């Protein structure tokens, strides 16, 4: 393509990326004009971060074999190999995590490495490195940048004293102070803001776009995306599903696009117009949490009853959660990462400080003690496979039988409480059984767990749980970081185990489709609370709406 004045600001052509044979992005093509605001939405792991990494020339891309396709800036092909190149080309980025220096003032942070300098003899003789700062000029520049955003923050305030919302504004101010910034990427900028602050930010962004700065806005809050953006791109499983003007989509349709893997027919239909689906009155109740299990409803005591559970798990705080799981049911817990879905099973198992009431088959469970939970015939597969789930430096038979040995006194010989030695023969025998039945690829029971691939490690974790012969099995992220073949096998194993042993299984996963394919019911967690429990057979978009924090809006649309 030859450079011409009508060329878009940034154009992507067939961008694709593979990590170690795992395809994370394929055939992404779109373009951005100057002053345009583009909304980019997608689930966790849809490929948004990878896309940003490619655009900014992050070293991780080059070190894993580069990317496919071409990038054009002003119609000229570009290939950034370091973030600095991208920055000097006029791309700006506001990160999800703050990259600010806490002890510095707003001014210092905004102008970091672009300080206004006083000329002096010293700097003439040596270099700019020894010149002093022109504090007044810096202050004015910082103030100007902050004012563009329409907020009032003193430029002399240190970042550590600011509320989170302010920090977000400072991050953005830093990017717009850079004179050549023409394209700004914002990764979930409103996640930490209050509603009011978010509104101010949206207004500020609109102002920026009028000045000709193009903006790519990444957010899970669909209503904001719809309000702010002129065009919406939906990314799912590494492909660009939709690229349409914002006006043509309702948030509901957006949600279904984000999570839906319904059928290709439906996806095509979206591009034109989705016929509004008929909504029945009873759905409202279900959405709001009082689900009735139509067919499987039993009068018996529930296998697990959780009342007002809170869990203090860093990054996954659970505030107030209540639900019931019937015996023999497969219950799913879904939701976006960071909203507390992982906190629920971790809290029940006693791995993180928790409070509230948990009853197992009608009897109260002592919280905060892993041993108590284990001795009540619960088993747990952690989401943190390498950190909590496995003894990486120990052989497989240790990994698989250790928990049963310690809590149930199996795989030992000798006199209980006085002298018991581990029975290595029994350990190896049991391990061989699982290596066969779960087809774990390894050299034998004495291979170290750390040497296996992710999928096989996950199978070892499952075997460890199965050895305990649990009544209730809690599994977190069963398919995280494993390839597609292993995914199917793991899920099938779980289903089979549930069918054969009548074990109650609670699966926590970020992948909604996975939950819907395995579970009987799925609860969606948002901001530490369950916003709804739906039978897995409900359409994906309903789950999507719940996940995107659209609880109230859903209710409204239903009643209309």
């Amino acid at each position: 393509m030859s450079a011409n004045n009508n060329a878009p600001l940034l154009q992507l052509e067939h961008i694709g990326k593979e990590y170690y044979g795992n395809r994370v992005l394929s055939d992404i093509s779109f373009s951005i004009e100057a002053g345009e605001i583009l909304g980019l939405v997608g689930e966790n792991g849809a490929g948004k971060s990878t896309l940003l990494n490619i655009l900014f020339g992050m070293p991780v891309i080059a070190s894993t074999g580069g990317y496919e396709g071409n990038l054009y800036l002003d119609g000229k092909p570009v290939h950034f190999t370091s973030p600095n190149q991208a920055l000097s080309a006029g791309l700006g980025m506001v990160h999800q995590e703050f990259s600010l220096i806490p002890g510095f003032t707003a001014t210092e942070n905004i102008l970091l490495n672009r300080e206004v300098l006083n000329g002096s003899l010293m700097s003439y003789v040596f270099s700019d490195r020894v010149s002093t700062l022109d504090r007044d000029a810096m202050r004015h520049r910082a103030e100007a940048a902050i004012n563009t955003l329409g907020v009032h923050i003193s430029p002399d305030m240190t970042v550590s004293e600011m509320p989170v919302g302010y920090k977000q504004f400072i991050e953005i101010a830093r990017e717009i102070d850079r004179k050549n910034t023409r394209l700004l990427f914002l990764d979930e900028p409103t996640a930490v803001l209050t509603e009011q602050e978010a509104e101010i930010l949206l207004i500020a962004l609109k102002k920026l776009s009028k000045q000709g700065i193009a903006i790519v806005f990444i957010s899970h809050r669909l209503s904001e995306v719809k309000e702010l953006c002129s065009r919406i791109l939906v990314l799912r499983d590494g492909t660009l599903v939709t690229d349409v003007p914002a006006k043509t989509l309702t948030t509901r349709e957006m949600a279904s696009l984000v999570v839906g893997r319904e059928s290709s027919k439906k996806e095509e239909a979206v591009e034109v117009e989705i016929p509004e689906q008929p909504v029945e009155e009873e759905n409202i109740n279900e959405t709001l949490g009082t689900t009735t299990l139509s067919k499987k409803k039993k009068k018996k005591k529930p296998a697990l009853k959780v009342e007002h559970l809170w869990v203090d798990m860093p990054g996954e705080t659970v505030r107030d959660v209540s639900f019931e799981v019937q015996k023999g049911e497969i219950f799913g817990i879904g939701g976006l990462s960071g909203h507390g879905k992982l906190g629920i099973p971790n809290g029940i198992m006693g791995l993180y400080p928790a409070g509230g009431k948990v009853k197992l088959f009608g009897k109260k469970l002592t919280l905060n003690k892993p041993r108590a939970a284990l001795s009540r015939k619960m088993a747990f597969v952690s989401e943190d496979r390498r950190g909590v789930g496995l003894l990486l430096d120990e052989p497989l038979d240790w990994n698989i039988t250790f928990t049963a040995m310690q809590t149930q006194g199996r795989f030992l010989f000798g006199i209980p409480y006085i002298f018991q030695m581990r029975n290595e023969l029994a350990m190896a025998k049991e391990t061989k059984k699982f290596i066969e039945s779960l087809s774990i690829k390894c050299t034998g029971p004495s291979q170290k767990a750390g040497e296996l691939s992710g999928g096989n490690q996950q199978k070892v974790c499952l075997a460890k749980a199965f050895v305990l012969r649990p009544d209730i099995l809690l599994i977190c992220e069963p398919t995280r970081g494993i390839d597609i073949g292993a995914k199917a096998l793991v899920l099938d194993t779980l289903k089979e185990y549930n069918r054969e042993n009548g074990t109650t299984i609670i699966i926590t996963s970020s992948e909604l489709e996975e939950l819907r394919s395995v579970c009987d019911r799925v609860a969606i967690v948002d901001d530490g609370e369950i916003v709804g429990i739906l039978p897995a057979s409900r359409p994906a978009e309903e789950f999507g709406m719940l996940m995107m924090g659209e609880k109230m809006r859903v209710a409204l649309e239903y009643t209309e």
Partner: protein
Amino acid sequence: MIKNFIKNAGWPRIIIGLFLLALFITAPFVGVNVFTSFNNTIVRFGMNGVMVLAMIPMVQAGCGLNFGLPLGIIAGLLGATLSIELNTEILAKLAELGIRYKISWLTREFLTAYREPAGFASAILIAIPIAAVLGWLYGKLLNRVKGDEMMIATYVGFSSVSFMCIAWLLLPYKHPTMVWGYAGRGLRTTISVEGYWLHILNDWLSLNFQDKIEIGGKILDVNLSIPTGMLIFFAVMAFIVWIFMRTKTGTAMTAVGSNPEFARASGVNVDKMRTISVMMSTILGAIGIIVYEQSFGFIQLYMGPFYMALPAVASILLGGASVNKATILNVVVGTFLFQGILTMTPTVFNSVFQTDMSEVIRLIVSNGMILYALTRKVRA
């Protein structure tokens, strides 16, 4: 084959092993008696073995290397001094018990005949509970500083030694062979165990050879005395540790060291396991020093235990242990190599260069190995 061996043994051990071999080969040419040197190596191995063994429980439980070994040594010193102090009283009490409970073999004659082994056993038996209590406290402390155990352990060792410097003076010991002659109180810096349990293990079942052989026109004295008893004692202690690491508790301990989060999620009380491991290490340290003393001939108080941890740490690292994995084999190989180097370098180098640079070599080897091993601290 060879590649496999190198991989399993590790380069450091091969290099040190070859170096040691080279020393043994050159020794006769510079006029050093190889047999005596070899005998010394074996004796030193037996003396230090149990103290190196004391590293295993703590390493396996993830508490790092036991730089606080002086604490265990202090318990051992208390046991040793108390056993001498109370020697006659204990024997009298035992004889009394024999009469009261009509235990036919427990007579005064029997006790006098076995006075030395009884003294040695009582030293160990007194030391164990003291070590257990100190180890328990030490374990509690280490549980509060997870991640910095080795730094804290070092200072636990140092400060306990300093504290005991005061205590040795003030404790009401009375025994004339142990207290300062001029004041009549306060323990001496070195106390001979002669007449109590000197060489009690060394001489038990010891193998002695005495001969003269001619090598290259020179007549060489062969004077070997293998301390079988001490080696057996070490083997028994090693076996006990080996068995323990295979029990339910030992397995839990290893898991705690391998991945504490995994252990916790499996219902194991991580802190309790760590405390048990520290207690075991301290007790082994106490027994270790008593074994050392019976061979060395003296109880060294005051600053004696100050630098005792470093050779033990260096030995086990030299044997191929890492900061969180150690086996009995590591102990055996490491202690032999370390003590071998320590015995051979002074004699050979002194003969070659006619100067005393043995201490320099010793420091380079021991500290170099500690440095090497600590940089290998990798956690997956």
